[in-house]
């Protein structure tokens, strides 16, 4: 026997080695995970290399949200690695979160050895069965020779078309087995999945002609613009400049168009601005760019923008005509379609005169003057809106990324923190996952070590993934948790006031932890503020700290989030802050609306 015959050919390796090599070949630098019995061979490989950094979280849910935050702030695919059974089931929440918000995520799960599958083995669960409805696609890999191809395909599916989460379930014996590594294919092997990015030029032409004829146009943009990449945001800005159309955005799309832009109407929807919602209701041409007519956006569907003709640009055919009927659907990637749109608009023989939309703008200015985000200032207690206004003022111009949890603080953050660039705002829009913001912030900080990353949190939400403080300390991730602490699950309480006769069932936090001590117990910095006069100085202090900070900002306990479109109402039936008296709040929603979520 010669020496050569003892050496394995380069493409022969163990399943665990294949996993690491495939990740590297797909450009992965960081993975978020938690070890366990069924992924030990992969962890052993991680130990023996240093190209990929593994971030050890304290709960698998944290790994998933961190990977989501990482993905959303970079445009890259987020990667998480968890063990079988409870590891996989704990990953379900972030998977569904990523599915609803169209975030590219590759989740690798360990599985019991193939010979034990179906035997109710220790830490066994039907991972592909459980994650089938909460992923874009998933695989159980039973043959080590297929592993590399599956991982390459997983990355392709996660990031192309409408992005989303995928799961690759790898039994332990497959991780140990030796097989052939196949390189990333030039062209996709799977013929059944070939998303289309170019829009139909005739449809785009029809849309541009409709836009040119509009007297009351509006651009309604969403997360699709962000997902399409920075180029799409540039094109969107160009289109707004060319057309001088007013523009609003969903929660997911904030930052695609700068909040300082003249045509910006603010966010629309349930807690959106009066001018955005009124303009949506009264427009004659609506151009929906990468948004999906979610129920938080439309309000009562049969009263949604009743007199407009609608254009809908979306990469997912199932989004077209799902909730709202549209006149001109354009299937394709937002960036590609906007490029054509800008080109065709420039080529219009008769571009509409400014006068065509003059009345419309006058009307919009009247709505704007209503100042729907106004609130009563107090010199004794910190109003939550004031806290965020100050946070924004003191962090603007810095390299700032904002994440949020879910609830009132999230809506106030969307109203009072303004974004100039895409990929700066990470929030759980579709699923509404409390506990999202802090781990997501960790993911953002891993990708942008020098940036200022702030998780705007509520006192209830933050306790859902607070264990990740330990992760923040371990990896020196100086994330700032800014808690608007009102001692309530504020949004739950607000709905109980609106819908359930002010019976505040289980929405008061009786046993609030001392957040300052909690931060210190983990090795971070705790701060406390309950005086509006001290707020600025404390926020400055927080920004200056180069460690994880929990900032317990005590705010007015009973403040509610307005304006609001109550359930079952239309855009032009908003409840404005100055009209939201106790009586109006109690009667805002009728019996039928009460059944809704």
């Amino acid at each position: 026997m010669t020496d050569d015959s003892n050496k394995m050919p380069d493409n022969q390796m163990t399943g665990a080695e294949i996993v690491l090599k495939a990740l590297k070949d797909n450009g992965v630098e960081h993975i978020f995970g938690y070890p366990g019995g069924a992924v030990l061979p992969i962890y052993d490989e991680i130990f023996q290399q240093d190209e990929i950094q593994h971030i050890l979280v304290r709960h698998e849910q944290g790994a998933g949200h961190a990977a989501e935050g990482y993905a959303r702030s970079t445009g890259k695919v987020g990667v998480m690695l968890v063990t079988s059974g409870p590891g996989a089931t704990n990953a379900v929440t972030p998977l569904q979160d990523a599915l609803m918000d169209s975030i590219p995520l590759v989740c690798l799960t360990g599985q019991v050895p193939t010979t034990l599958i179906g035997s109710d083995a220790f830490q066994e669960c039907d991972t592909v069965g459980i994650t089938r409805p909460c992923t874009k696609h998933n695989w159980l890999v039973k043959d080590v020779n297929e592993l590399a191809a599956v991982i390459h395909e997983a990355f392709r599916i996660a990031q192309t078309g409408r992005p989303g989460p995928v799961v690759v379930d790898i039994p332990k014996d497959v991780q140990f087995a030796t097989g052939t590594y196949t390189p990333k294919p030039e062209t996709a092997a799977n013929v059944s999945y070939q998303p289309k990015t170019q829009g139909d030029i005739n449809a785009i032409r029809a849309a541009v002609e409709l836009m040119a004829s509009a007297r009351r146009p509006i651009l309604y943009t969403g997360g699709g613009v962000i997902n399409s990449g920075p180029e799409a945001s540039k094109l969107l800005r160009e289109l707004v400049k060319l057309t001088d159309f007013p523009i609003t955005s969903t929660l997911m799309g904030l930052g695609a168009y700068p909040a300082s832009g003249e045509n910006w109407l603010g966010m629309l929807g349930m807690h959106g601005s009066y001018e955005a919602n009124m303009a949506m209701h009264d427009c004659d041409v609506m151009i929906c760019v990468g948004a999906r007519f979610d129920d938080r956006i439309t309000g009562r569907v049969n009263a949604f923008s009743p007199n407009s003709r609608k254009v809908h640009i979306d990469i997912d055919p199932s989004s077209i005509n799902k909730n709202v009927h549209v006149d001109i659907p354009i299937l394709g990637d937002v960036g590609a379609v906007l490029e054509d749109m800008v080109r065709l608009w420039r080529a219009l023989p008769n571009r509409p005169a400014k006068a065509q939309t003059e009345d419309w703008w006058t009307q919009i200015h009247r709505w704007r003057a209503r100042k729907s985000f106004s609130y009563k200032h107090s010199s004794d207690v910190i109003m939550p809106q004031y806290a965020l206004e100050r946070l924004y003022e003191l962090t603007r111009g810095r390299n700032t990324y904002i994440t949020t949890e879910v609830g009132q603080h999230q809506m106030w953050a969307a109203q009072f923190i303004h974004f100039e660039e895409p990929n700066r705002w990470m929030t759980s829009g579709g699923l509404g996952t409390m506990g999202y913001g802090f781990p997501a912030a960790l993911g953002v900080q891993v990708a942008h070590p020098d940036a200022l990353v702030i998780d705007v949190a509520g006192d209830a939400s933050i306790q859902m993934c607070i264990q990740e403080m330990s992760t923040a300390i371990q990896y020196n991730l100086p994330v700032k948790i800014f808690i608007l602490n009102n001692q309530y699950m504020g949004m739950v309480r607000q709905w109980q006031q609106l819908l359930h006769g002010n019976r505040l069932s289980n929405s008061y936090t009786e046993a609030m932890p001392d957040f300052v001590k909690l931060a210190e117990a983990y090795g971070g910095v705790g701060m406390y503020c309950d005086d509006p006069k001290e707020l600025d100085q404390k926020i400055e202090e927080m920004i200056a700290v180069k460690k994880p900070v929990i900032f317990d900002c005590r705010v007015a306990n009973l403040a509610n989030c307005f304006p609001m479109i109550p359930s079952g109402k239309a855009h032009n039936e908003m409840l404005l802050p100055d009209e939201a008296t106790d009586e109006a709040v109690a009667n805002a929603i009728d019996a039928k609306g009460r059944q809704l979520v």
Partner: protein
Amino acid sequence: MNAHQQPTGSAYFIAPETAKAESHTLSILVNNEPGVLARVIGLFSGRGYNIESLTVSETEHEAHLSRITIVTRGTPTVLEQIKAQLERIVPVHRVVDLTVRARDLGQERPIEREVALVKLVGQGERRAETLRLADAFHAKVVDATVEHFILEITGKSSKIDQFVAIMKPLGLIEVCRTGIAAMNRGPQGM
């Protein structure tokens, strides 16, 4: 139950569905791989769509392709949504609404056929009557003893419904139906 008619399932769908529900037959070409049927039927249950009939079998062994035929019920909007959602499933190659295709081709319906096996027990005059009726329906005897018959019948679902109803008093004890296999008329392929 149809999710789009029930306001409780989703936040704002309180507009009553005014369009009329229709039965459509969908043909779905999929990769023959583990879990693909679960993906398809999971979509139907998860989104509150109906399945009235479901048939699945490998149709091209070398290409690893299976064909799933589903009869479902919904308003035109819901049916369009079902098709779009099915097309989103990664191993799904094509979805054709055979009912819509038939209309486009100026035909009333696609060809829809079902096979049923029907077991009857009995003696004497009942057996003769069974065979007479089987003959009238072009049903074949595929198994028999002196006390039983198994009949095989092929045809439209309505014909099989009728056959089963007629056979009930003649000692019918067991029925097995395949569900619908369907195809459009004419020279064009799927």
